[in-house]
C-alpha cells in the first residue's frame, strides 16, 4: 500500500477529494491518503505517490516561466 500525499492551496470539497482518491487508487492500487493545505502553492494540486510526484500547481508553473525568462535574458 503506497503512501499518497495530496497538497492543495485550499481545502477540497468531499466530492472533489473522493473523485481524486478514486482515480489514484484505480491507477496505483489501494493507498493511504494524507491531505495538506499549503496556500504557498497558490493553486492547483500536487499529488505525491511514494517518491513519484505529479505537480500541477501554479507555483511550479510560474517558476518554470520565471526560469525561462531569466535564461532568455542571460542569452
Amino acid at each position, binding site marked *: 500500500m503506497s503512501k499518497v500525499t495530496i497538497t492543495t492551496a485550499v481545502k477540497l470539497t468531499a466530492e472533489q477529494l473522493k473523485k481524486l482518491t478514486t482515480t489514484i487508487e484505480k491507477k496505483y492500487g489501494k493507498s493511504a491518503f494524507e491531505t495538506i493545505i499549503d496556500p504557498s502553492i497558490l493553486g492547483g494540486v500536487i499529488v*505525491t505517490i*511514494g*517518491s*513519484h*510526484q*505529479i*505537480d*500541477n500547481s501554479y507555483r*511550479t*508553473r510560474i517558476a*518554470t*516561466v520565471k*526560469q*525561462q*525568462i531569466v535564461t*532568455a*535574458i*542571460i*542569452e
Partner: protein
Amino acid sequence: MKKTAPSFNITHLMSTVPVGISETEVGNVITFGDGIIQSQGLDNIRMGELVDLGEGELGLTLNLEKNKVGIVALGRAAHLKPGSVIKSTGRILSINVADDIIGRVVDPTGKVLDGRTPISSGKMMLLERIAPGVMSRQSVSVPLQTGIKAIDAMIPIGRGQRELIIGDRSTGKSAIAIGTILHQGDQNVICIYVGIGQKQSTLAQTKQILEERGAMSYTAIVTASASDPASLQFLAPYAGVAIAEYFLDKGRDVLIVYDDLTKHAQAYREISLLLRRPSGREAYPGDVFYLHSRLLERAARLNKNYGGGSITALPIIETQGNDVSAFVPTNVISITDGQIYLETDLFNSGMRPAINVGLSVSRVGSAAQIKAMKQVAGTMKLDLAQFRELQAFAQFSSDLDEKTKAQLDRGVRVNAILKQGWDTPLNVEEQVVVIFAAVNGYLDPIQEKFITAWEKEYLVYLHDQLPEILASIQKEQKMTDDTIAALKSAIDSFNRRHAEWMLEA
C-alpha cells in the same frame, strides 16, 4: 548613463515554454556535508542521473542503495538542509557541444567561464560513453607531430595514441603538452586542454600563451580549478573527452591533454571516502584503475567506415620523488601506449626538455614516423644509450682511447641538439635536417657551447639559401639520394663560413 533593458521575444518564449503538469521523482535530503548528499525517496532514479537540488543547482547520483541515494553536488548547494526536497531530472550527465566551443573556456557542465555568450545549442554529448570497439578502430599510423625533436625522433606519437607525460613537479610536463598544442596550428588537429585542480593563475597564464600564439583558434579549454568542488574536478576529463568525441564523430583529428590525472584521482578519492566506499591502496577506492582506463580507452583511431577521425590523449601524471611505482602512476603507465619520463636532475643540469630518453618509450614506435625521420633517427636512441653508458664509465678515467673519445664527443653533440625551448616547436623537415647533421658527424668539429647558435643559424641558412631541400623532404616524406647529397654539401659550405665556432685544430 542610461542602461538598456535586455530584450527578448516574449511571444516566442511563451509559445515554447512547457507549462503543463510536471511528473518527477522526488526525494528528501537526510544529510548534507562536504558536497555529499544522502537522500531518501527517488525510487526510480538511475545511476549517473542529474538531480535538481533547487535554486538552479545540480547533483549527480553516484551511490544507489536500498533505502538511500548518495548524490554528489555539482556546486556549493549552500541552500540545502535536511528535509529539503530534491527532484530527478531524467537527464544523464551530458555536455552541450557545438562548433563554436573552439576558442572557449568551459567548466565540466558546459557553463562558459570566459564571460562571453553561452555555447550555441549543438549536440548533447554523454560524459560517460563506451569507448569505440575493435571493429571500428584501425591501427595508429599517422604521426602527431609535437614539434619537439627528442619526442618526434625517438618517442614518436601517432594520432589515436595515448602517451603519458610523467615526472616530478616543475620538470616541464605541462610545457611539453602546451608546446605540442602550439605546434598543431597547421596540422589540422583540434586541441582540447583539460585543467584539473589547477590554480586559476596557472590556467590564466596557459590561456594567455595559447591566445598570444594564435592557438586558441583551434583549442578549447575545459577546467575545474582547485577552488571548484571535487565533483567538478572528477568530471572534467570526461567532459573534455565528450567534446573531443563530438569532433571525432565528424571525422576530425583531436588532441586532448589531461593536466593532470594525479589530481583527478585525488578528487575521486575525496568523493569516494566521503561516500564511505571502502578504501584500498593509498586510500584510493577499488575502482581507481577503471576510473582512468575507461577515460583513456576513449582515445582511438577510427577506420574509414567510421569517419576516420582520431583522439590522441596526452595524460599528465605528477610523481613525488621520482616514484613511478606509486599506485596511480603504475596504473596509468599500464593503460597508456608509452610514457615520456621527465627528470628533475636533467632539468636542473640544463637539459630541456628534461626527457630521460632511456626510460621513455612509445609502444607504437616508428609506425608513427615519416620515412625521412626514420632514416635519420633510426640509430639515434641506441647511440644515446651507448653514450650514457660510456659517460658514466668515463668519469673514472681520463685516459681514453681515440674511438671512445670520439663516441663521447658525438654523444655530447647529439644530446645538445635535443635541447629545445618548449615554445619553439620545429617542423618535421627542420628536425630531420638538424638530426641528420648531428648523427652524421657534421657537428663533431663544432665547439659544444656553440651548438645552439649553430642550429639556429643553420636553419636560417637553409630556409634562405636552399629552401628546395626542406621542400623536397616535406613533399617526398623521405630523403632521396639527391637530397642527401645536396644537404651534405650545404652543411659543408655552411661550416666553412663559421670558422669561429670550430674546435682548435
